């Protein structure tokens, strides 16, 4: 694989990553998705999961995102993450508290509208993914 594309990862607070990479695996809402240069243009929603970046045939960077969106064009991928942390600096304690909060929110959401329940469910799934990632880096 010779080609590269521009990967940009931004969270509301700052620009986390902006450089040319060979491949990125992003956790799209309907399954993990590997993106290579020249991908068809897409806009996808993300669920909580890990973005891995491949450069020079090796995974050089792994970041946990808690949901968001990605815009894919043949020569550029822009990930708008709700929040993003490098996997290495993810702590088990933080993941556990996030999970607890999400579970509580889910319990509260049982009586609300389906949309609210879906939202709480998405948060819960993202928190679970965070725990899994934190425990097995």
């Amino acid at each position, binding site marked *: 694989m010779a080609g590269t594309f521009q990967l*940009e990862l*931004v*969270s*509301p*607070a*700052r*620009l986390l990553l902006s450089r040319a990479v060979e491949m990125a695996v992003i956790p*799209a*809402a*309907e399954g993990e998705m590997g993106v290579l240069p020249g991908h*068809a*243009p*897409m*806009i*996808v*929603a993300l669920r909580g999961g890990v973005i891995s970046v491949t450069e020079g045939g090796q995974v050089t960077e792994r970041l946990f995102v808690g949901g968001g*969106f990605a*815009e894919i*064009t043949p020569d550029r991928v*822009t990930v*708008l993450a*709700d929040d993003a942390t490098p996997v290495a600096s993810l702590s088990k304690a933080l993941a556990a508290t996030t999970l607890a909060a999400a579970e509580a929110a889910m319990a509260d959401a049982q009586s609300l509208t389906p949309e609210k329940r879906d939202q709480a469910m998405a948060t819960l799934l993202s928190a679970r993914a965070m725990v899994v990632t934190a425990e097995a880096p």
Partner: protein
Amino acid sequence: MASLKMLRMRINSVKSTRKITQAMKMVAAAKLRRAQSQAEAARPYAERMERMLASLGAAVATSPDAPQLLVGSGRDQVHLLVVMTADRGLAGAFNSGVGRFARARIRTLEAEGKTVKILSIGRKGAVYLKREFASRFVGEVSFQGKKTVEFADAAEVVARISKMLEAGEFDVCTLIYNRFKSVISQVPSEQRLIPAPLPELQTETTSGPQAMYEYEPSEEEILAALLPQNLGVQVYRAILENSAGFYGAQMNAMDNATRNAGEMINKLTLNYNRTRQANITRELIEIISGAEAV
């Protein structure tokens, strides 16, 4: 003429005022730098969000079941004004500038027969507008005591706005805040949030015609998640610009105050020395005339 002691006391008090304003200026300058870098760091996200929304929004806006957050309720009767000011004063005309702007806006809207509701962010604006428009208040938010404003805080405000929209409590939502033009100039300005002003599609000329995107899951689902997020970004950006502007204004105000205090000290010192010399001269005359009389 004031006595020497009085003059000395006044000089001392002005000197300590100058020390305080000087310290406040330094603090404001340091905080300004932080607020500015935070505002700059948030810019890429907002820009990319805008780009994504432009391609998405244009496709959906024309369909009849477009989400309310994008097209509003189709009416133009009840206006919600989100007025954003600082929590603290001592920043020159920063807060009252926004207040005046908001007041003029409210007056014109009401003259047109519209209903106005106010949601204030920041304590000072609430105090300013409550004097006249207390009955129009629907809520106030304050970030007082917080060191930095996080995106989650903006999201909270947005959650409140969208809840009101769902309940049909307003038709048009406008944000009024101080745009950060430069350190010395903040411009009170307004920005419509709902219905969302769709950015021009033809802004990007680099990639030729807009690429057709595939969506996963569906356009509607992505849009439903993207819109609140976009609103949050807008509010977040306004909050950051507002706080950067506040520190800029405060720095200027304190700079002026320090300068004025310096001028006052000079004047008072001159006055003090004149009085002192006049006293000495008078005493000399008394002594000499006393000696002559003997």
